[in-house]
């Protein structure tokens, strides 16, 4: 204690990061109740760490006094720990995503869906508002880009569903009915559902990410000020392309999925390919194929509209793009499942 009955702390010559531990050990033993005198007379060098420690002491210890502060050190302390720079107005206030208000969100989704049907109709009628060649480009991206994953997944689903059913059917000596289970199940239910889910993950995510990035980079604004309607310019080619890609993908998925079931039938249940095919035709009709196709078409359009909706409603830069992409996949898959349940209730 000095004459002023304060605890006298002589600070070292280098109040810097390298000496942090030493200084911390020294200062850490202080009792916040004690009056303290910090002696800067030996201090020659100070960095932001040293300044932060002094600033911390000043805030934590109610009765602290600094002594021996040279004008240079005082200026450094002011610079390092000085007053806050004025916070600029953000200009554009942080916008909440429309999805934060369910009612408003649903309304916007329905409006977008209605607009898109009108845009597609208008395009088919007038052939304007879509960039030349864009439909082919999108068709290639969606169809060619997805056929292998759709094939692999539906083949595996076909194999799995056949293996699961074959065991039960073999136990009852009803091996041949495997063809009915696989054929009907794949064509009416599993191919539409799996194709929809794969498209939601692959095509939907890509649409949202692309549109959301365009929005963030002002490309959507640029389309507006060029007198173009972005919702038409960007969405119509995708809606038409998915309408063309889905029948191709579904046909492929049906063939590959049933072939998976046939392989199981042949090697697990001893059903020949011909017998499998003939039995399947006794239960599967053209209507079933068309219903499966129709369901997948609806799923495809729902995916594109959901993805576009999430892409156009993005805000908050790169973070927003990521959030919108995730939300679009979740929304698309949820809607597919809900719609599939509604179809099931209506049809069975």
């Amino acid at each position, binding site marked *: 204690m000095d004459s002023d009955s304060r605890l006298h702390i002589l600070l070292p010559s280098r109040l810097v990061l390298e000496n942090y531990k030493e200084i911390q050990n020294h200062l850490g033993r202080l009792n916040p109740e004690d009056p303290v005198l910090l002696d800067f007379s030996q201090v020659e060098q100070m960095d932001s760490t040293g300044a932060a420690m002094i600033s911390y002491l000043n805030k934590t210890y109610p009765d602290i006094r600094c002594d021996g502060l040279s004008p240079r050190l005082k200026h450094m302390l002011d610079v390092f720990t000085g007053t806050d720079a*004025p916070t*600029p*107005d*953000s*200009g*554009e*206030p942080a*916008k909440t995503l429309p999805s934060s208000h369910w009612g408003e969100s649903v309304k916007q989704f329905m409006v977008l869906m209605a607009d898109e049907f009108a845009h597609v109709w208008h395009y088919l009628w007038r052939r*304007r*508002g879509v*960039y*030349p060649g864009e439909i082919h480009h999108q068709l290639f991206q969606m169809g060619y880009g997805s056929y292998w994953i759709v094939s692999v997944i539906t083949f595996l689903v076909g194999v799995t569903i056949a293996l699961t059913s074959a065991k039960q059917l073999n136990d009852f000596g009803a091996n041949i009915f495997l063809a009915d289970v696989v054929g009907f199940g794949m064509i009416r239910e599993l191919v539409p559902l799996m194709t929809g889910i794969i498209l939601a993950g692959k095509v939907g995510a890509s649409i949202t990410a692309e549109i959301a990035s*365009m929005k963030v*980079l*002002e*490309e959507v*604004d*640029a389309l*507006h*000020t*060029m*007198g*173009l309607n972005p919702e038409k*310019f960007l969405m119509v080619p995708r809606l038409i392309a998915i309408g063309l890609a889905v029948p191709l993908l579904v046909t492929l998925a049906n063939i590959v999925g049933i072939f998976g079931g046939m392989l199981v039938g042949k090697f697990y249940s001893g059903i020949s390919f011909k017998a499998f095919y003939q039995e399947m035709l006794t239960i599967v009709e053209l209507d079933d194929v068309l219903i499966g196709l129709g369901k997948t078409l609806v799923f495809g359009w729902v995916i594109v509209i959901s993805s576009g909706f999430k892409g156009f409603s993005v805000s908050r830069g790169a973070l927003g793009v990521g959030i919108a992409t995730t939300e679009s996949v979740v929304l698309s898959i949820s809607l597919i499942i809900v719609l599939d349940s509604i179809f099931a209730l209506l049809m069975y």
Partner: protein
Amino acid sequence: MREETIIQTHGLSIGYHGTVVASDIDLTVKRGRIVVVLGKSGCGKSTLLKTVIGLLPPISGTVEFDGNPVDFNSEQSLQRLFRRIGVLYQNSALLNSLNLYENVALPITMHHPAISHEIRREMVTNRLRQVGMAPEMERYPAELSGGMRKRAALARAMILDPEVIFCDEPSAGLDPITASGLDELMLNLKELLGITFLVVTHELRSIERIADDVLVIQEKSIRFNGPFQQLRDSSDPFIRAFFLRDKADAKELSS
């Protein structure tokens, strides 16, 4: 050159979702001049630009283009405005899926499909030549530097001979030499083609080089509106501080 008014706003309040960013903005833009809107970051410059180009409805007040009020609820009215303006965005906003030629040709392709391929190519090449980008027309935006993208975006903004080109922070992210080249380009286009420019920026060097008239926004309202020469001679402490980059003065004025 006709000294007539091309853009006029009356008592304009601008903002997002009812939150006022700036109010009582009376802006007058004369044909064939370069008007610079300046102010501190976040003062509402870009919001004003978005409003005047029809992307953001005003909270109150009116925008007139060539004497006709812009109806923000009417698609036709907005389309009439869009046909007569070009916009150079801060991020260039070129479509990444198209090459430079296709980007610049986009307004022709979409609005005037009857124009033959040869004429379209000629129009695009001429515009790209004017901005010094003709040799790069087959390249994609991702393959170009920021300055090159800005030049190409300017070519796209000019392709259908707009009467006014709006530029949002044209020098942002550019080195001084490229930024100076872009300023020179705007001056040339103004002189040669009589294009009117409304430029949002806070680059002092750029302002000194190109501005005919200046609008200064501070604390949600207009601080100065008049010719650049008058601004330079202004004794207003905020404007002095802005030009001299005097932090002490600016701090005092902000408090």
